[in-house]
């Protein structure tokens, strides 16, 4: 592969209560790639994503970020996570804080920015996601789409090198999916390295530089999204795509 691999996983294994969810995943993701992960529910795609920033601890295998293995006891996982943003299906905004406080909390607490710098950065990001008028609102007053755009801004405030998206549009009403995908598209255009677990095949086709099809804890197929959609090589990929591409 060309470019520099910012994420590398070797032979990743993870089981929950004896049920194997990741059955040995080996993958490299280069800087600037937008990797879209698809697969049936329960296939392990979210677990794979959550292993990348150690929200789940792999049972076996290596997670290497920027050339450094991070799933070792001596590694300060908090420092690693500062350069990897994560966006969740259910937004997980902090309901007791205003939009502004949601965005500035981590950069200020972690000493990355002064409160003034963080406020400035937050306004800049709110402009980018088109919600600058919501700075002083509480999350409870926002729509799902607005919440998710704020959640993206919150992650970006830490100026991460990598952004992980765990089904970012799955909990949204259909008419709000577009506004979130637009923000993600712009982020992809800006050169951000992204790993996106999603069911949005349109997004995968349009923005993804690579598609991973995961089933039963393994990467069954990997390639240029259009190529995979038009010419799936594996029988299971074909079956899955025939179900979702209607």
């Amino acid at each position, binding site marked *: 592969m060309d470019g520099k691999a910012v994420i590398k996983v070797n032979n990743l294994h993870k089981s929950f209560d004896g049920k194997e969810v990741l059955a040995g995943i080996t993958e490299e993701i280069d800087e600037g790639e937008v990797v879209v992960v698809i697969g049936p529910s329960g296939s392990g795609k979210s677990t794979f994503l959550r292993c990348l920033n150690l929200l789940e601890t792999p049972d076996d295998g290596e997670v290497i970020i920027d050339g450094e293995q991070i799933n070792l006891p001596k590694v300060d996982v908090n420092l690693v996570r500062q350069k990897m943003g994560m966006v969740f299906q259910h937004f997980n905004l*902090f309901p007791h804080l205003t939009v502004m406080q949601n965005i500035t909390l981590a950069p200020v607490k972690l000493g990355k920015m002064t409160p003034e710098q963080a406020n400035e950065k937050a306004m800049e990001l709110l402009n980018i996601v088109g919600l600058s008028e919501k700075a002083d609102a509480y999350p409870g007053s926002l729509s799902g789409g607005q919440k998710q755009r704020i959640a993206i801004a919150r992650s970006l405030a830490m100026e991460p090198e990598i952004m992980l998206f765990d089904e970012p549009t799955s909990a949204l009403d259909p008419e709000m999916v577009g506004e979130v995908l637009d923000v993600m598209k712009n982020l992809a255009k800006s050169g951000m390295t992204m790993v996106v677990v999603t069911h949005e095949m349109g997004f995968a086709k349009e923005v993804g530089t690579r598609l991973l099809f995961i089933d039963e804890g393994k990467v069954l197929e990997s390639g240029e999204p259009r190529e995979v959609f038009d010419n799936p090589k594996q029988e299971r990929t074909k079956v899955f795509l025939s179900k979702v591409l209607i």
Partner: protein
Amino acid sequence: MTEWWADVVDTFARCFLKDDRYLLLLKGIGITIKVSLLAALLGIIIGFLIAICNLSNKKFLNIIGKVYTDVIRGTPSVTQLMIIYFVIFATVNWEKWIIAAIAFGINSGAYVSEIIRAGILSIDKGQTEAGRSLGLNAKQTMMEIVVPQAVKNIFPAMCNEFITLIKETAIVGYVGLMDIQKAGDFIKSATYEAFMPLIGTAIIYFVLIKILTLALAKYEDHLRKSDKR
């Protein structure tokens, strides 16, 4: 009718005015408030620590927390008060009310810890994950994200606990403190009147707790301002 009224006035005067007996009740109110406030403060501190023990993934901390809550909840508070006063602090020359407050704080801590534990568990796991994914450590996530939200959820239960605590302090007479209850009891013995001193005692407790409840309700409104949509 006038005769009856004169009788009431006379009893009232004998119970509360003669020999400045109202002063006993006023001082009693002071003792009750002092003991309750210090005990509540200690209860919250101890409760928080024990809750952390119970929620920790370290086995020995779990055991400490479990034994603490078991022992405290399994024995009467009068017994605990007397053990702490006459046994543990027997040779310590502190003011009585402080020792009593420590006893009630230790007692309240066990109940508070369960309230706090439930409050922390009531916060969605996603909140912790969001905090951790931003790079905040476990303690920062707990203090900045989980605890402020838990406080709102546990507030009503904590008010209950504080009210219970105030009423529970009515047993401090057992270690010779003259609180509201003991003052009322003293007046009853001195006057051979039961009705007025005891009803008076009840009214004082009721008014104290009513004022507290109103103040706490006001504060809860303030806490809930982020819920308004």
